[in-house]
């Protein structure tokens, strides 16, 4: 019996388990998937928790609901991969042998990488919303808050879902308006990037929206440390930003398991061929989702598009054929902008987000780089699609590779 092992049963690993169980002969191939947790979190939902739009029960389901029969699910922490001998060591000493390995262990936040972040104000006046604990703590805090300086800060690149902190400030603007204290809340957005976003056309649209909503952008601010006593962010070039409440995207890195396995770069991301999704070091290892170092967004939508390419290439590898499918870095992100509206961006390695309609040229229904009600519904529907279509590895009526159809070129 040949063995396929998947590390991580998050968005990417779960999708792959579903796709592969349908395709690989059960007499010939065993499929095993390993994760340390029994709960699957719908991470895009974390964004809505601080504002009471979702609660924790809206974003959790048992992982076992999504693992197909015929796949062996193991709940255990992974200690390390011994790639030279095709073995995975689990915590406690159990060893799994594999013929092919898919790494899908994602990325996580490391607040301890920034001095002063995880200190006496942590989850009291300094929060993250990239964990369920942080998002829920912030919801409790906002309920009793009467206003002051709210700072949203990004510590380091890359981080998953690059639009999430922008959505956070848009939703904060709407939330404080609705509860009647917007005039007492000063919102700023601190980023190490030169602007609200990196690609020029989207940056222009988003900057205008931020200005319209009276949100201050503080660009090129690379945080060195947080001073808990004076409640200030301090940058490496010694600039300061004061806060009353700080929401932060901590440093994102791959799991320590990647480092212990000697498989990662300096941020514990696995060097991966950006087209074939094969590990650069080992032919029988493929990497899907946030765990890889491919130069596109770390997002569920990217993992979904990439999964189709990885699937093709893994089947080719198994059959001894060349890896012909090539990923283009396709990302598709809904951006909540508050007050029941949203924007949408669609891009890849080479093409920046452009205006137009999606997915049907001229018809939409979604407007690219436009702030509309229907785009907001796209985001709302995304949760349903995530649980019922995406995780189960089913196809969406959207092509995995980006298309220029429906997009307008901008000079």
């Amino acid at each position: 019996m040949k063995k396929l092992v998947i590390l991580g049963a998050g968005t990417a690993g779960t999708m792959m388990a579903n796709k592969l169980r349908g395709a690989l002969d059960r007499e010939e191939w065993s499929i095993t998937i390993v994760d340390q947790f029994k709960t699957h979190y719908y991470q895009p939902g974390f964004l809505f928790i601080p504002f009471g739009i979702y609660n924790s029960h809206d974003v959790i389901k048992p992982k076992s609901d999504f693992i197909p029969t015929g796949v062996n699910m193991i709940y255990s922490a992974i200690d390390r991969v011994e790639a030279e001998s095709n073995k995975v060591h689990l915590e406690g000493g159990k060893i799994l042998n594999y013929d092919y390995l898919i790494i899908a262990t994602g990325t996580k936040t490391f607040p301890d990488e920034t001095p002063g972040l995880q200190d006496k104000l942590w989850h009291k006046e300094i929060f993250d919303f990239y964990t369920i604990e942080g998002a829920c703590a912030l919801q409790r805090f906002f309920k009793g808050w009467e206003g002051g300086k709210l700072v949203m800060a990004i510590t380091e690149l890359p981080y998953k879902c690059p639009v999430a902190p922008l959505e956070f400030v848009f939703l904060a603007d709407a939330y404080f308006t609705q509860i009647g204290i917007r005039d007492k809340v000063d919102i700023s957005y601190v980023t190490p990037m030169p602007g609200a976003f990196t690609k020029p056309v989207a940056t222009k649209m988003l900057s205008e929206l931020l200005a319209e909503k009276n949100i201050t952008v503080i660009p090129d601010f690379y945080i060195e440390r947080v001073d808990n006593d004076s409640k200030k962010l301090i940058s490496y070039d010694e600039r300061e930003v004061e806060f009353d409440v700080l929401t932060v995207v901590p440093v994102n890195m791959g799991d320590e398991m990647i480092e212990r396995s000697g498989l990662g770069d300096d941020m514990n991301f696995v060097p991966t061929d950006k087209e074939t999704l094969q590990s650069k070091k080992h032919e029988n290892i493929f990497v899907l989702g946030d765990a890889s170092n491919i130069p596109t967004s770390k997002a569920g939508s990217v993992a979904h598009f990439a999964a189709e390419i990885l699937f093709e290439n893994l089947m080719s590898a198994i059959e001894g054929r060349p890896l012909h499918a090539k990923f283009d870095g396709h990302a598709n992100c809904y951006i909540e902008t508050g007050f029941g509206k949203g924007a949408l961006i669609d891009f890849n390695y080479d093409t920046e987000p452009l205006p137009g309609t999606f997915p049907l040229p001229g018809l939409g229904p979604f407007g690219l780089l436009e702030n509309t009600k229907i785009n907001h519904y796209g985001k709302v529907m995304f949760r349903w699609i995530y649980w019922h279509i995406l995780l189960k590895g089913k196809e969406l009526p959207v092509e995995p590779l980006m298309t220029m159809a429906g997009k307008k070129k901008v000079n």
Partner: protein
Amino acid sequence: MAEKTLAGKTVEVNDEGYLLNRDDWDKDLAAEMAKEDGIELTDKHYEVLEYLREKEAAGESLTIRKVGKSGITDIKGLYQLFPGGPLKLSSKYAGIAKPASCV
């Protein structure tokens, strides 16, 4: 896109002054580029530039954090060497493309 003469050499640069062809680079050219921004390059600066060129040639993505872990200098030191925009400026003087952060 434009042509520019630096240290006696005519090279192609983009509208932000970054070299279009990394093979046009040499140390004198780097010194002249830095001088335009009022920075005098020292051995430490050159060590950083060589490091960036090496990593870029290897196809690795460049971040301030990475240079800070290189052993040449820490992040604070990097800001002192290239005030204002450590990675933006150092990659320009290193003759490589401006590092695009992935979104």
